[in-house]
């Protein structure tokens, strides 16, 4: 129990640290965006005082306030979900995020889910036929695909399936001229638009299948498997409750970490496919020197990773009874 509280405390601490860091970067570094903003905008305004107010709207920081008060206000705003206002999009950052995040989540969760599902199934089959032609062929394939960076694959898919063959759209995230909502054409349409980005993230399946293969082979050699066979358990029970469960368990944390890192991948991928998700806005923000939006996406991604890891840690104990208790048999 205590351990959980401690773990949550750590997560909260990390988030606060990231927010503080963003404050330091925006406000305290020499040549920081707030000062730059005031210096740039101030002279153009009739009332220079207004520059400070604008800085406050956009970046949640009033440069006139003493540092510690500015910090407290900034943190309070951020924690309440007010991430300032984007200059390039001219809309509240929070609103932009709220609109963009579902799309990113949609693509990324599909990519992660499919990647792991395919990887685990392939890995299990490879382990089952360990040493066969099937195994070596797939191992070769998996090793190759793992070593390709996903954005290279993305560009390749975009070139071939998108531009040359024209099977899939080369940009955008939803069909045109279809009513938005839970209707079939719209649903199909968004899946259609998401296909190429999802396929590009498929490279992760290679790594997953190799891990799964290794884990399964290891479990197959465990003593408890031999005992289970001697005990006369059915092949099905052994395959599912003994091999699969023990082989997948160690990958669970990996899955959560993958979800976290996928957000990073989203930045590049959404840019390549002009997919208007969070990553897309992040790049836009960098181009337009839109600090509020940049910091907003940055914090959201960080928090997402922290939360994914927190969930992984907290739920791991539920599925693996060994978690949290160290082995103290020998010292």
């Amino acid at each position, binding site marked *: 129990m*205590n*351990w959980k*509280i*401690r773990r949550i*405390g*750590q997560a909260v*601490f990390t988030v606060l640290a990231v927010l503080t860091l963003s404050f330091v970067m925006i406000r305290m570094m020499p040549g920081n965006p707030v000062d730059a903003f005031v210096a740039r905008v101030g002279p153009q305004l009739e009332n220079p005082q207004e520059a400070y107010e604008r800085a406050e709207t956009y970046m949640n920081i009033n440069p006139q306030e003493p540092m510690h008060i500015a910090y407290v206000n900034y943190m309070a705003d951020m924690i309440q979900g007010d991430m300032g206002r984007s200059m390039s999009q001219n809309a509240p950052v929070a609103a932009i995020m709220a609109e963009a995040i579902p799309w990113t989540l949609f693509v990324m969760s599909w990519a992660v889910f499919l990647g792991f599902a395919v990887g685990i199934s392939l890995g299990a089959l490879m382990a089952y036929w360990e040493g066969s032609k099937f195994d070596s062929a797939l191992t070769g394939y998996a090793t190759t695909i793992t070593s390709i960076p996903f954005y290279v694959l993305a560009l390749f898919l975009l070139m071939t399936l998108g531009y040359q063959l024209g099977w899939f759209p080369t940009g955008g995230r939803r069909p045109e001229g279809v009513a938005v909502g839970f209707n079939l054409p719209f649903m199909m349409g968004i899946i259609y638009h998401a296909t190429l980005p999802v396929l590009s993230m498929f490279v992760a399946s290679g790594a997953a299948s190799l891990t799964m293969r290794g884990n399964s082979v290891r479990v197959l050699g*465990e*003593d*408890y498997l*031999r*005992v*289970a*066979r*001697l*005990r*006369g*358990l*059915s092949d099905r*029970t052994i395959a599912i*409750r*003994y091999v699969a*469960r*023990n082989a997948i*368990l160690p990958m669970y944390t990996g899955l959560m970490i993958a979800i976290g890192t996928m957000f990073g991948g989203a930045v590049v991928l959404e840019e390549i496919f002009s997919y208007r998700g969070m990553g897309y806005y992040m790049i836009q923000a960098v181009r337009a020197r839109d600090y509020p939006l940049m910091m907003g996406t940055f914090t959201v991604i960080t928090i997402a990773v922290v939360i994914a890891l927190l969930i992984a840690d907290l739920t791991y104990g539920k*599925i*693996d*009874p*060994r978690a949290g*208790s160290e*082995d*103290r*048999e*020998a*010292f």
Partner: protein
Amino acid sequence: MTLSRSDASTARPADDVVIELRDTSVEYGMDRGTSKVLNEVDFEVQRDEIVGVIGESGSGKSMFASAMLDAVPEPGVTTGEVIYRPEDGEPVSVTDLSKEELRRFRWEEVSMVFQGAMSSFNPVMDIRTHFVETLSAHDYDVDRGIERARELLSDLYLDPDRMLDSYPHELSGGMKQRVLIALSLVLEPEVLVMDEPTAALDLLMQRSIVSLLEEIKEKHDLTIVFITHDLPLVADLADRLAVLYAFEFAEVGPSEDILENPAHPYTRALLNATPNLSAPLEEMRPIEGESPDPVNIPDGCSYHPRCPLSDEQCVESDPGPYDAGPEHDVHCHHWEQSVEDIDVAFAETDERAFTSAAEKAVDEPLVSLSDVEVTFGSENDGWLDFGEDETVSAVDGVSLDVYENDVLVLVGESGCGKTTLGKTAVGLQRPTGGSIEYRQRDIWEGSGGTSSLADEEIRRALQIVHQDPGSSLNSHQRVRTILEQPLKRWHPELDGNDRRERILGMLEYVGITPPEDYVERYPHQLSGGEQQRIALIRTMLINPDLILADEAVSALDVSLRVGMMDLMIELQDAFDTSFLFISHDLSNARYLAEKTGGRIGVMYLGRLVEVGSAERIIQNPQHPYTKALRWATPELGEEAREDPPIRTIDIPDAQDPPSGCRYHTRCPEAREVCTTESPEFVDVGDETQIQRSACFRALDEHPYWQSDPIADDS
């Protein structure tokens, strides 16, 4: 020499055979040729007997076990006949069963407990699920089955509720082993095959389990096949003993007969090589040579390359079973000669005068530990750490002196802190309390907060030989390079030639010949025994004053152990070093300590409870715990086996050790005062023999004698 070859197996009275092996072989196809890991053996298991099968590693004993259930691991192939005769009903040919029939046969008729008991359970399922699964896979009534499981668990001195609700990792090794035995009996099989079931456990636990087996066997009408490398362990349990050598049986017969009149040269050699507590040390002899490779089993008698009696006949023809007494078969052409000559063949005495521990004790100590404490685990550390205090005290206030040219052997169950104490003594573990002095200098002086010693000289003086020699040698370096390093570092005055001479000399000294050939090898080209010797030489070349040898012989085969121990003793004497041995085996401890006039120290839950000369600790232990260890060390040919002199089998949790005398939870002599007061060392030695014991019973005057005995709740 004309010996008639009587067909021994038919000379038997009408017997009630439950499993019969005829011409059974197990083969593995390998690149180098076919590997025959069981070579055409015939064997009969009688109903309701306990038969002990003795074999060293690589004798084919595990294959023998698996063959009885036709459960040889892939891709091994079992040939020949394996016949199972149920009490009522037709004999079953196990090798001809269909997959489904085999699935039912195993565990319902014959079940098996094998070596890997520590990992025999699915780590993500609780124990109850293991029982339920097994019962339902065989269509047994689950409720009745669980009832039986509870009964079995309590017969094995386990708390059924606690066990069933636990996950495997929550149980100690000894508990897991007993739970596995219960699991193997839950379907009421006729036969239980046990392959090294206790090998990974402490002696006290092994012995307790073995003594429970007999009761279990009586209660449940079992036939037990107990396979082990440890002859003394089964000697008094088994009705019959069978000795496996090189994938064949060398000798089979009633236990007493085998122990008192072993007929096969190998059995005789094995008995001589087995360290024990009572036999004169001069009679313990290692067996020369190594077991054969299963790809290349020698023609004729497979023991002939190592046998002192071998002749033409042995090389040419396979020795069939000769009748060496009632129900006693031996596979040796010259068994009669063996009975007469073999002891002579090994007799050879060596006399060496050692200063006894009592005399050494007047000198200045070489290394002196005073009130050493080692605590592991984190206490609360920092403001984000809400965790509770989880510390384990591994060593709790131990004071000990090691003298020049001294040998001290620490014994105790695993988790008693003997390894930690050993490492602390040689500066590999920083104590959390107390001090360690090397020639009156604090060894941690000047090292700041680091975990390594500051003083070069002390670092050189204190060395360790690792438990696993293979892993301590750099696999990318040749033996020459490995051995040159310490010389270069500690003896820079030697030039290349001198170094070479020194290394070759050492190799030759420890019996690695030809040394010129060996220095060019890599560690993986050496056998386990050779690696161990190289590791030992490397340490000796540093010229240390004290060497810590942690379980240095327990990984070796029985037949090699005595040889290795002799070598260490010889080196200790030749190099004038002191040794601190760590062992969980009292017979090894006795061998080492008695031969060198050293001491044995007994540890329990982080404390030293008794220390004394080998003679005293073995012949006249004062502390009740030492007595229990003494009981746990089986004796060859010792008939009377009393009940365990302990009240509970399992060791208390080291995280929460008992108050007062830490042994009071298990001590049969414990009285009320033991639960609150902690006994100090009492000197019970005399001028010639050292012995100190931490128990109130060693004092004539103590409130202990007026205190009430602890009510026994078991």
